[in-house]
């Protein structure tokens, strides 16, 4: 169910043939070269922005997209009740109003949330957006044939657990009320102070019931944003967007929408994307990527080149790559063994394996190192930069392994520099110094994912990572450490099988808070408290380094997504 965001997966191999052929038609010569070279860096309207991606944006239907903060390409077409603040760095991790006049008005215990729509909102056909369309859009996301979204709505809305969507159940969801055309009210099962974050997801996009075409809606969804879908070929492999003339900056303070046209080409190999961006020829000069990082070797080349390095954008997405223990498997039931491994880890060689200090930052906390997550620095088992083998040996002796021990580390064979063999061998080498012999068990990626998320097959010692659905401690700590979220048969993310009453109670208490800053502080404190149990060894937080074409202007990278925001980019 709750997967680390799609955005977190950096490298994906796919075939490129079709996309290249389809793209040829859209790659006309640009007429603004003369204007663009004058050293004028202010953004202007016009031109065509090309997006070169590895993964296609499949199922381009607001009900089916799983996004963090409304996504990047989807957010150009789908407006939501709230959205992420389109600013650089930490300011970009805030939630701001989009279709609604504010980020939501809670009742006293945060179980009822009320939103009012702005005036003058229109679809691409000029018809008005109403609160009933918001309700209908959410109801659609419950239909089994439109699956794909995050599970929060089903978990949170009153009486939604078994709802089958508006096609089967004409009555609709009673948890969502629309007292008038501009007001929508949500009734929740339990207090959820972070509801405004959830309202950024595309399921909160208005869908006009009369225009709903079910599973075919993805081919031409009705736009509420600055662009409308002109072409959607091969399920998101090639998407062309053009201006929606009914969208207005008067009701949208967030999206800038400078280019006249956006051409999204996917299914490209990551090395091809970076090669094309660095060459910046023809239409590629006005190109960006939203899903492909610079790899270590590419970074080595780019940093040696002044012109290229000036075109690299750096971003931080809330994610932690870590070692997880299953305390029901020996010898990891012994906290001293877990602590010994925590002390022995050499984060500098792990970071080098992940691509070096430019692509990864050392992690000693489970929460990402950002304020919005409630980051509270701690280092409970200080390993220094290169590991503390002496302390680890001492702990192993106390644990009853004076001669060291042999363990098996499970990892994926996917080439992702996160849970891949490179990271595993770096851990293996570091633990060797502490007298721990590590055998590696590399699994095919799907097999690996199935094994670690099933309580029956979960290995004792493995590499994994977690990315946030929104930049807060809630979606980071609750799925992993809330004992009531242990899933016996199905996808389980509480890999440490922690079921601690005080932790569960604190999670409930923080969820009641509607002051998000106060909540962040408590998440940070809870993170430190859980850290004492040494159920994970945080290794690093990835950093995104992405090239843009040479004509690209106004690059804005928020800490929410870690990648440049397409809605802010200009090509002139």
């Amino acid at each position, binding site marked *: 169910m709750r997967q680390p965001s799609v955005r977190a997966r950096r490298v994906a191999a796919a075939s490129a043939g079709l996309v290249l052929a389809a793209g040829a038609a859209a790659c006309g010569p640009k007429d603004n070269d003369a204007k663009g070279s004058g050293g004028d860096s202010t953004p202007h309207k016009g031109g065509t922005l090309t997006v070169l991606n590895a993964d296609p944006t499949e199922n381009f239907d607001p009900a089916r997209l799983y996004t963090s903060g409304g996504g990047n390409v989807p957010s150009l077409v789908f407006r939501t009740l709230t959205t992420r603040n389109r600013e650089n760095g930490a300011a970009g991790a805030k939630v701001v109003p989009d279709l609604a006049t504010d980020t939501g008005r809670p009742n006293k215990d945060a179980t009822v949330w009320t939103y009012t729509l702005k005036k003058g909102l229109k679809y691409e056909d000029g018809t008005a957006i109403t609160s009933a369309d918001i309700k209908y859009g959410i109801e659609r996301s419950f239909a089994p044939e439109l699956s794909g979204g995050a599970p929060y709505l089903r978990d949170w809305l009153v009486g939604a657990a078994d709802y089958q969507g508006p096609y089967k159940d004409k009555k609709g969801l009673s948890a969502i009320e629309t007292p008038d055309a501009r007001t929508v009210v949500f009734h929740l099962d339990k207090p959820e102070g972070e509801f405004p974050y959830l309202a950024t997801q595309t399921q909160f996009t208005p869908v006009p019931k009369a225009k709903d075409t079910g599973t075919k809606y993805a081919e031409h969804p009705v736009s509420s944003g600055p662009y409308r879908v002109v072409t959607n070929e091969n399920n998101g492999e090639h998407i062309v967007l053009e201006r929606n003339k009914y969208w207005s900056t008067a009701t949208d303070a967030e999206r800038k929408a400078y280019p006249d046209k956006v051409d999204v080409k996917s299914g490209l190999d990551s*090395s091809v994307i970076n090669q094309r961006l660095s060459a910046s020829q023809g239409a590629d000069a006005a190109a960006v990527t939203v899903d492909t990082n*610079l*790899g*270590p*070797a*590419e*970074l*080595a*080349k780019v*940093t*040696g080149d002044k012109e290229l390095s000036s075109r690299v954008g750096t971003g931080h997405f809330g994610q932690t790559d870590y070692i997880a223990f299953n305390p029901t498997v020996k010898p990891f039931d012994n906290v001293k063994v877990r602590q010994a491994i925590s002390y022995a880890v*050499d984060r*500098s*060689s792990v*970071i*080098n*394996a992940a*691509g*070096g*200090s*430019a*692509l990864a930052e050392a992690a000693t906390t489970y929460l990402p190192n950002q304020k919005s997550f409630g980051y509270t620095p701690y280092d409970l088992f200080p390993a220094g930069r*290169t590991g503390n083998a002496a302390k680890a040996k001492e702990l192993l002796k106390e644990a009853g392994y004076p001669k060291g021990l042999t363990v098996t580390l499970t990892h994926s*064979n996917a080439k992702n520099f996160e849970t891949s*063999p*490179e990271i*595993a*061998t*770096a851990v*293996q*080498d*570091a633990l*060797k110094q502490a007298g721990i012999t590590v055998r*590696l*068990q*590399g699994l*095919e990626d799907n097999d690996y994912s199935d094994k670690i998320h099933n309580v029956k097959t979960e290995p004792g010692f493995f590499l994994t990572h977690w990315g946030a659905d929104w930049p807060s401690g809630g979606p980071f700590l609750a799925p992993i450490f809330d004992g009531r979220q242990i899933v016996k048969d199905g996808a389980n993310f509480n890999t440490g099988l922690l079921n601690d009453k005080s932790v569960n109670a604190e999670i409930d208490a923080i969820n009641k808070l509607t002051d998000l800053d106060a909540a962040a502080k408590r998440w940070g404190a809870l993170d430190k408290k859980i850290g004492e149990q040494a159920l994970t060894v945080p290794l690093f937080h990835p950093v995104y380094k992405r090239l843009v074409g040479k004509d690209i202007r106004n690059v804005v990278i928020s800490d929410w997504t870690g990648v440049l925001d397409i809605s802010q980019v200009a090509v002139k």
Partner: protein
Amino acid sequence: MSEALVAAEAAGAGVEPVPGASGARQFWRRLRTQRAALVAAAVVALLVLVALAAPLLTALEGQDPTTYHPSLVDSARGGVPIGSFGGISGDHWLGVEPQTGRDLFARLAYGARVSLAVALAATTVQVLLGVVVGVAAALGNRWVDQLLSRAADIIVAMPLMIMALALLAIVPSSFPRPVLVALIIGFVAWGTIAKIVRAQTLTLKELDYVAAARLSGWSTWRIARRELLPGLAAPVITYAALMVPANIAIEAALSFLGVGVKPPTPSWGQMLTSANVWYQAAPQYLLLPAGALFVTVLALTVLGDGVRTALDPRAASRLRVGTGSKREAKAAAEKDVQSDVQSKVVQSKVVPSKVVQSKEVQSKEVQS
């Protein structure tokens, strides 16, 4: 490959079924006249020496193949080795690996062990299986022959890499990997050698001395061992010599695809996989394993070809050992070897077309 097959058959079709002491001497004499083969033999000897002495050599260098040296790579630049030519220094003779800082010389030397050991072991498996199945098919009754020959046909027709990938994927990871890789390469590629052995045995069986042995009441087992096996030596050695480089290439390909030996055990194919993205930033990282693989496969192929020529009576007559002009003989031999080498190098890179091969075997059988 199909040419190797013809060569092996030709070598076996000779009139000297029992190469005794004089046969061996003659073999060396013929091999000695081929300069390319001698150079190749020297290169192979050097490689074997490096592989055997890998722990010694790396100890001399003061390194080992698995220790990380984070301080020798530039972490801020993606982990590119610090220093010129990939960080070559007195401590690291061939530089260090990007990102990890592991010593490249040590990894290459230990990688040679994996490549050579796996290839030799796989060849042994192929030869053993091929000879046993081939001889049994030729000597057994019609049903045994049918069964074993069809089994060999099936093995020959199977796409080798896909079979190997499938087998490697299902075996539990606790099984020692290099042994497994050798066994699997051996098991998926014994068909051709079995077919050669069968055809050769059928020819030998009809010869007078074998008939004489049979009439004296020798058991089939004794005939096979004492009379047939020596006659099979020439084609089997020839084919085996050409299988070794092919097996090295297969091992490298499997490692390249991530199913060969496991990290941190170094192997050339595995080094190629992680090096292929570094071709611009740290070219020596890609060139070293690629060069090592190229030289090894080339040297073994040239040597295998020399062995073939030395064992082939027709080629031997062209060499005119000890009779005609030496210079003329050399020129003929070199020309022959060079043209063969070119075709071999191309063949060893491409997965051989088994279908063509099996067709050729069949037509050969018809002719014989």
